[in-house]
């Protein structure tokens, strides 16, 4: 007996609801952009400067007391949140304190951390500071730029690579799917107000990598089928392709998700946001490669005769498939 995520021979029509799936995708993208614009992102100190302090204490944490202790220091915007993790016992109470970048400071404020630590020690004598991070506004501005460059460079490089290996329609389809995934992830981070920091950018780039991986596998099969079935309707051809690759798509997403869920549950709270972003991105990425990327290729149309070498396209192939058709 074998475990099968999909029946052996599927012949599902993935375009029957194309209008709704595309509509849903567009709606989701618009909602995400709206959330980004109106709710905004909960930027970590990497991007807006400031200090985060992680505290650990055996006593239960009373956020009010902590806040009162820090009040006299006049630090501006201070946020204190308790962190929960199944791995913590009853005697491990963890809190994250975030303090805004101090006015008029290019670099990290010198005595800030020492003052905060001293103030907290008066209310919780056994408190320990397991991590303290400060980023000056000068660096955080540069980090934002670097992050934007990284995302832009990744998308541009992929656009170029797909164009080189396939055709420009595929490029557009793949990049549309990528943007869809990235924007939806940003939307979720905005709605749930999960901390958005450098690690999140790394996660976004991973999503870009994974989503493109998924899309390319389908494109690859599509190209093969284009050569194999020259007379078939493009729409039917695409359906056939997706059905053929469906088992693989779900297997790979399945194994990756299984691994990521283990990390999400057991990997500790420090990287939970990071892992959550990747997990979410893989779900969305799997959907988008089936429902977004190829729909756009279908809309744009594609060259049908792949049998003769065409000097005007840049398409190159690693293997010469199609000889067994």
């Amino acid at each position, binding site marked *: 007996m074998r475990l099968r*995520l999909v029946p052996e021979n599927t012949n599902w029509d993935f375009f029957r609801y194309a209008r709704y799936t595309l509509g849903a995708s567009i709606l989701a993208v618009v909602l995400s952009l709206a959330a980004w614009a109106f709710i905004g992102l909960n930027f970590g100190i990497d991007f807006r400067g400031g200090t985060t302090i992680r505290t650990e204490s055996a006593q239960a944490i009373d956020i009010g007391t902590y806040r009162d202790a820090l009040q006299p220091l006049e630090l501006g915007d201070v946020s204190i949140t308790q962190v929960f993790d199944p791995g913590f016992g009853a005697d491990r109470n963890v809190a994250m304190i975030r303090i805004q970048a101090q006015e008029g400071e290019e670099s990290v404020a010198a005595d800030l951390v020492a003052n905060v630590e001293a103030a907290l020690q008066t209310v919780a004598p056994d408190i320990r500071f397991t991590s303290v991070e400060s980023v*000056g506004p000068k660096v955080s501005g540069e980090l934002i730029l670097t992050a934007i460059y990284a995302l832009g460079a990744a998308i541009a490089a992929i656009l170029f690579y797909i164009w080189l290996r396939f055709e420009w329609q595929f490029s557009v389809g793949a990049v549309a799917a990528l943007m869809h995934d990235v924007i939806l992830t940003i939307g979720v981070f905005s709605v749930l107000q999960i901390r958005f920091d450098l690690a999140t950018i790394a996660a976004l780039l991973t999503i870009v990598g994974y989503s493109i*991986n998924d899309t390319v596998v389908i494109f690859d099969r599509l190209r093969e089928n284009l050569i194999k079935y020259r007379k078939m309707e493009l729409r039917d051809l695409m359906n056939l392709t997706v059905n053929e690759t469906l088992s693989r798509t779900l297997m*790979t997403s399945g194994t990756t998700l299984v691994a*990521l869920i283990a990390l999400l549950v057991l*990997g500790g709270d420090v990287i939970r946001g990071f892992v959550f972003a990747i997990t979410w991105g893989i779900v969305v990425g799997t959907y988008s490669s089936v429902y977004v990327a190829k729909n756009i290729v279908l809309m744009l149309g594609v060259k049908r005769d792949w049998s003769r070498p065409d000097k005007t396209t840049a398409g190159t192939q690693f293997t010469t498939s199609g000889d067994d058709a």
Partner: protein
Amino acid sequence: MMQIDLWKRVVIWGIVALGLFYAAPNLFYGRVEGHNDAIQAIEMQGANDALTAQAEAWPEWLPSGLVNLGLDLRGGAHLLAEVEVTDVYEARMTALWPELRDALRPERDTVGAIRRQNAEPGVLRVQIGEPSGMARALEVARGLAQPVVSLTGGATTDIVVTGEGDVLTVQLSEAEMIASDDRTVRQSLEIIRRRIDEVGTREPTIQRQGSDRILIQVPGIGSASELKEIIGTTAQLTFQPVVSRSSNPDERPGIGNEVLPSLDEEGVYYILEEAPVVTGEDLVDAQPSFDQNGRPAVTFRFGASGARRFGDYTAENIGNPFAIVLDDEVISAPVIQSHIPGGSGIITGNFTVEESTQLAVLLRAGALPAELSFLEERTIGPELGADSIEAGKIACIVAFAAVMLFMGLSYGLFGIFANIALLVNVALIFGLLSIIGGTLTLPGIAGIVLTIGMAVDANVLVFERIREELKTARGPSRAIQLGYDKALSAILDANITTFIVAVILFALGSGPVRGFAITLGLGIMTSVFTAIFVTRLLIVMWFERRRPKTLEV
């Protein structure tokens, strides 16, 4: 049809064995680390029984390279410092003034009286009495310029002299500023390295970043502020003659003098001669010690020329006070009791033992040429790092088990082949990380977990393809062959695109993000290798032995 040459098999197994061999030390992390530390300690300070025993705990013939643990896993401090390179311009102009004054003095007939004017930092402005003598003044000032060889090849001078009306303006030239910045940052880097080495921690990272920044990562240190105390202090030590004492910080010191506060005594100021007798640069050694009353102090020794100047000065000024100044604060101002020959002395003050030890370290390592400002600082406690490793380990094992179960259930025997390849894959990642001395960070662990999930992808592509080919192709052998051939294009395309992302992450990321990029990139390479070669070889070997008529994948 499905033959693999013997030499290819040998190469494939050889690479796998090599990977396992180099990954092995990581299974005994504590022991190997102890071994490496002991060997280093023996090199530094000679062998003793305990160290030798520790060194022998790990056999010499086995590789001892380990995966470095990043700060987020080991705990430690991270600092990003910016060198205030413009500090140096100011010092240069201050030093140039007496030189210019001496050069213009013989020309007093043509240029008239000369007076230094207030100017912004890094600019020297001099007023001359006779505006008609400006041409001559410019000529003299330009005579002080030194040639600079810039990278672009054009030779220019280090200062730019301009004149307007009766004011002569001197500042550093563009080329000299660039050269000076580079020198300042390199000197700072060197001094920071010396100071951290003096404290003696394990594997610090001290790197130049961009034109004027320095990244410092020190594992195992308690906090970033501790690290800042070691490297953030400029430690400019001077010995200056005392003119008088005062309680007024705004007292006019007179030409060539300056007012500096006392370090310990509140409200006490000293008026000192600006030109030091000797400076920290003349020191050849400094050690923490105790004075005759048993209080912590620092003893120091001058080099030959410093010792002579110090000896001469003390001989001529018996009975006068003498100030020891550190970073513009007077540590103490003892009265010279007698001539001090031999060039050694002691600095006393209200030190604690830690302070005297640290001062000695700073004086030995030398002064920073410019101040540092800290743009970013991070401290990660060792217990948080240990927690993260523990959580990462458990997550990895569970992820591994789940993926293997999933693969076994889905593809049966072929799934088990893929699982063996997966184990090899992770071993290869660790082996490669150990060989290149890569750093494993918390996101790096996430990268490995992600690779575990994605490494099976290439196998899945092949297996699914074999399944399809079984429906049409002639016999299992042909199906396996076709499955591999046809899946190759998809495997390569899919992995190259992900690899592009890993490269971009590595190029643009820093710290933990870079750690993630490394494991992701290595994971892609090893997973393609294991899927295309290792799994295939396993299948071929199985097939040769069994020769099955039918195949179930």
